[in-house]
């Protein structure tokens, strides 16, 4: 998998978070998620400036199979969204950790990050779900 940053954390609902070190974080869906969803055809991104609590449904990814909510992994205000996904949703399939990123947010509660799963914990979760 190209473009996969180190030190990602994950949610149980298959979102990844990358702490950008400046009080903000980048969010996307995992490779496991995009594989389960199949070809993505529409992505509804959150509004820039909107504020969400950790666990809120804040975006929608729609594949050939089904529409799926994306949940905010951390609380905060949306700073930027990946506009390119509007016309090219397939980037979230082909490069889920890189060009397929969904949005960035301002981290309002840094304590929440420790509630997220580490890479190892997430891989265990995925392996367990396969059975």
């Amino acid at each position: 998998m190209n473009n996969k940053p180190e030190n990602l954390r994950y949610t149980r609902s298959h979102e990844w978070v990358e702490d950008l070190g400046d009080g903000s974080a980048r969010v996307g869906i995992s490779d496991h998620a995009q594989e389960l969803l199949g070809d993505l055809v529409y992505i509804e991104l959150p509004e820039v400036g909107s504020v969400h609590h950790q666990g809120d449904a804040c975006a929608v990814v729609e594949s050939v199979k089904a529409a799926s909510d994306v949940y905010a992994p951390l609380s905060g205000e949306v700073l930027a969204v990946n506009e390119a996904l509007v016309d090219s949703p397939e980037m979230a399939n082909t490069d889920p950790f890189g060009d397929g990123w969904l949005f960035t947010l301002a981290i309002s509660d840094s304590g929440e990050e420790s509630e997220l799963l580490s890479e190892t914990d997430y891989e265990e979760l995925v392996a367990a779900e396969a059975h």
Partner: protein
Amino acid sequence: MPKRTPLYEQHTAMGGRMVDFAGWEMPLHYGSQLAEHRQVREDAGMFDVSHMTIVDLKGGGAQAFLRYLLANDVDRLEDGRALYSCMLNDAGGIIDDLIVYAGKDGEFRVVVNAATRDKDLAWMTRQAERFSVNLTEREELAMIAVQGPQARERVHGVLTQPERSAASELKPFYGMAVGELFIGRTGYTGEDGYELMLPADRAVVLWRSLNEAGVAPIGLGARDTLRLEAGMALYGTDMDETTSPIESGLGWTVAWEPEDRDFIGKGPLLAQRGRVGGKQMVGLLMEGRGVLRHDQAVCSVDGSVVGTITSGAFSPVLGRAIAMARVEGDVSSACRVRIRDQLQPVRVVKPPFVRFGKPCYKEA
């Protein structure tokens, strides 16, 4: 324990994501159903359809039997022609949709769906009792469909000389046997191409040769979006035993003439034929973003329900969602579909949505 076709190992070797379909382990896709869909529209793709049920009919009474069994009339066929028909129950409901090929000497071949095999065979066997006809299921045959603008040429490249010769003569919707190979110029995608019925071991060789010649394997996901773009119905999803051909957009497959032909389900069908304002199938075209899906409610502008989507999908050629829906009463040309609690505007259109690889409908 799901059944496997003779091509199962080929699918897994080619990266097929296998799923259960009607008790068979079949490839949903080989990586991307969107890419596979485009491959068929632009070039050539091949489908393993060996799970479908092939039944040969022999005997002097075969013609009379089929004229009674089916809502369409095999009298319309001359040697080699194929016919698309519904097979009805006594109430006029659809037991299955199928294709019949007329062979030499009053013989016929019928291809029915995989999911309906058991009930179809039981029904046909029972109805055949009064006729001098023999039904033989050809379980040993595999079936490969090759579809797309380049399909025929690619197939010709892997056939023997006599097979190639026979195939190139075939007109659309005709079929013929050449030795152990049966070639039908038919398909379920709206593209030109062939459906090939052949012994299992040759099928494996042919599949690999076609792949080497650049024909991509295509899964069930793309098969569904291709047939929907082409306006073709899927049994069990768009119609079933509770729906008649008239209510399923298949009135055109019923042969009302000659009037003196009796067929199963004729009475109820004739009664429906004269009626005004019953259920009918329409095509829907999504105006904005979002995917139309099976079971979504179709509503008029004021929100009252007028019907249900039977088949819906994202159309790769149109770049937006399309659907077939069964509606009742007056449906104006602009209506709504309820998608996740919101009423979204859709346009009512007449299928097909795609013809010769091109969209039939442009932006609103």
